[in-house]
């Protein structure tokens, strides 16, 4: 059953799904997704999916490995640590806002806050921490917030991603909303996230080599050669949307947070490897 469907999806065929199948749990979604990519790339070990295109293309992998010698984000991570440890005007630090003082917790983000009824991403938590301590929020996509987030990720490297969808209708709705976003075609070019990253990973789209869904959020924030600096996951979402000529949504909008929630859940069990470099 799974196999037949996987093949059909891979062919991009429109598949009428029996209603009985609808309403699968997030965990069933995830297992099926893992199985799908294992079949698509039988030679790629599970943990390697976090390296995206570098798990699939040797020439690119070599370039990446040579960048790993001294990754260009090192300065930003050091600055992020400095900012993370520098007290706010009220004397408190970021550590006061996070479990375990903010160290080694990246793998738990984003999470669904059942009291506020919304998805909390790490960047959102960083800015809420600032605001609750009387500081101005940072801009969302790059700069200081990316550096702080990169430092926090760096203290969590190797920890398996552990996103939970609590037994709560709103949490499940947020997850489903993110999933719908991932699979819905958008923009004048009529592409969904999945058109590239589920149906065509390992292929070239012009000068870009497409990575698979699995492991995508493990790397963020990433230093892209194209940007020449670190950027957050939502900056990347906006870039992808823009590429297919769909109006990007604001960083940390509910839609993008739900998308991050779904996407990161799919990578449960894969290690945090951010920050990382990408073309």
């Amino acid at each position, binding site marked *: 059953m799974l196999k037949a469907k996987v093949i059909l999806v891979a062919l991009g065929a429109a598949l009428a799904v029996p209603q009985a199948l609808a309403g699968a749990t997030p965990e069933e979604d995830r297992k099926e997704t893992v199985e799908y990519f294992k079949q698509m790339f039988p030679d790629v070990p599970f943990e390697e999916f976090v390296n995206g295109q570098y798990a699939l293309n040797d020439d690119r992998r070599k370039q990446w490995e040579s960048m790993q*010698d*001294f990754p*260009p984000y*090192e*300065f930003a991570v*050091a*600055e992020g640590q*400095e900012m993370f440890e520098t007290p706010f005007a009220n004397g408190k630090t970021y550590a006061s806002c996070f479990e375990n003082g903010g160290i080694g917790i990246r793998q738990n983000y984003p999470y669904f806050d059942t009291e506020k009824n919304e998805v909390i991403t790490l960047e959102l938590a960083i800015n809420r921490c600032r605001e609750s301590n009387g500081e101005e929020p940072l801009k969302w996509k790059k700069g200081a917030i990316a550096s702080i987030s990169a430092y926090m990720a760096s203290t969590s490297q190797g920890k398996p991603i552990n996103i939970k969808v609590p037994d709560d209708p709103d949490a499940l709705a947020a997850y489903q909303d993110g999933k719908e976003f991932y699979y819905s075609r958008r923009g004048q070019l009529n592409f969904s996230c999945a058109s590239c990253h589920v149906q065509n990973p390992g292929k070239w789209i012009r000068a870009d080599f497409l990575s698979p869904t699995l492991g995508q959020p493990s790397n963020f924030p990433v230093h892209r050669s194209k940007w*020449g600096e670190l950027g957050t996951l939502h900056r990347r979402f906006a870039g992808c949307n823009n590429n297919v000529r769909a109006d990007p949504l604001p960083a940390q909008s509910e839609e993008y947070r739900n998308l991050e929630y779904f996407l990161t859940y799919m990578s449960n069990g894969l290690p945090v490897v951010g920050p990382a470099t990408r073309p």
Partner: protein
Amino acid sequence: MASSIRVRAVENNGVTALKALVRHPMDSGFVKDSAGNVIPAHFIKVLTISHNGKNVFVANWGPAVSKDPFLECRFKGAKKGDELTISWIDNEGASDSTTATIA
């Protein structure tokens, strides 16, 4: 202010392998900003690595070297615990220098 230079130097069988990363925009002078104005060239011209007062490597760079330049080189004659000095100067006369201990 943190140093603009990050260095790792490791000695093995008499050969010291040095890797350095320098924070610098390395503007080529061929790129325009979002307002359409050319960003003037701004780049490191010379970077030297010295050991015991002697240069063991001199890099002369132009604006085609990537932003936050990376350099790797290897030399003999140094041992673990020795100090290296890495210095650079750019086309606007700015400079920086740091020391690193060979591991």
